[in-house]
């Protein structure tokens, strides 16, 4: 994934996302938490898709599409940046 989560983003287990550079906070669902945590570990999009595919009964194509949409939201909120 050529997109990186900004370094000052914190996410709690219950889905509270805090951007410590702006003070903005957000709420994401449990899968959002998983994706953000995987992004924090610098996982590639393929690795994230694979991880989600192993845990949920959803095909890779659907995960890919949903992941793309989720990442677009992160970019639009300036929580992530393009490398």
């Amino acid at each position: 994934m050529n997109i990186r989560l900004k370094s000052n983003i914190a996410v709690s287990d219950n889905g509270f996302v805090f951007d410590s550079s702006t003070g903005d906070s957000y709420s994401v669902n449990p899968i959002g938490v998983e994706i953000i945590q995987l992004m924090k570990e610098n996982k590639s999009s393929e690795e994230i898709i694979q991880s989600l595919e192993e845990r949920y009964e959803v095909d890779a194509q659907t995960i890919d599409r949903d992941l793309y949409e989720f990442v677009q939201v992160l970019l639009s909120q300036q929580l992530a940046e393009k490398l």
Partner: protein
Amino acid sequence: MKQQLTIAVSGLNNTDNPGPGIPVIRALRDWKGKDVRIIGISYDHLEPGLYMHDLVDKSYSVPFPSEGSDNLLLRLEYIHQQEKLDFIFPNFDAELFTFMKLAPQLEQMGIKTFLPTLDQFEERHKYRLSEFGIKYGLNVPLSITVGSVSEVPAALQQFEFPVVVKGKFYEAYIAYNIEQVYSYFNKLQSKWGLPIIFQQFVYGNEYNVTALGDGKGNTIGAVPMRKQFITDKGKAWAGITLDEPKLLEMTHKLIAANKWRGGMELELIKDKEGKLFIVEINPRFPAWVYLPVACGQNMPAAAVRLAFGEEVEPFTQYDVGKLFVRYSWDNIVTLSDFQKISTTGEL
């Protein structure tokens, strides 16, 4: 420095437009290893801090600065005779100038202050902000000072709408057309007098920084905050500390450039491209100064130490993501207390 200090503090108006007095007092009370006696200085018998006896040991009414510095000095001499003051923390914008003028006389009496110099105080006025930005190489929005209504059309040619119309000392409005500009101009002129300041409106998020300069160019403390809840008077009712190096860089740059002495609050706006603009420099600690204290930077205590000539190591850390949330509280006050301050000027 003595183990026990007697410190006078003004700005006890802990209202919906709060003064910094009570937060400054809380900071001084948190000063580890120091026994502080707090003397409240008040301009109004209903300033809530007067009745907060767990925070304020004794209070005195003082005359408004508009009544002249001589009257204020006389009153301070009386208070000093009673209390043996070591330090005064003036917290109202409107009284700062008078206290700066009186600082040498207060020093002679044995009372210390830690205030900006008169030059520093004057040049950061909002009607001189453009000049200030150029002098110190800091980004500020374009500002034009308008001395009369006849100057409005020419001044407006420099701006696109919306434009911010600001009073000399307080209040600002965003005008979206010429009619609104004239309306706000008249409103501000009748309330605060001339000049009025027109300022470029910068689209973006507002940030604030509380800081302390040692007067030699060093930043002793600096904590950035974003308002999370704003009252209809535009005052922060909740805010959170941030980890944003650019805000701190801007603060350090300003303090290094003009060798700021004392507490200050910077108001900044970050535009969509991430460029920071300083929109206001308040020459005192803000009412949210207790948040930095709770995050590890007791700047009011550090200011007192600096005034006594102590070497103060700059703070380098603070807790990020800590919030203040204000609340209102009906303090029950006896008639006897109200009567004492109203008739004797002491409580």
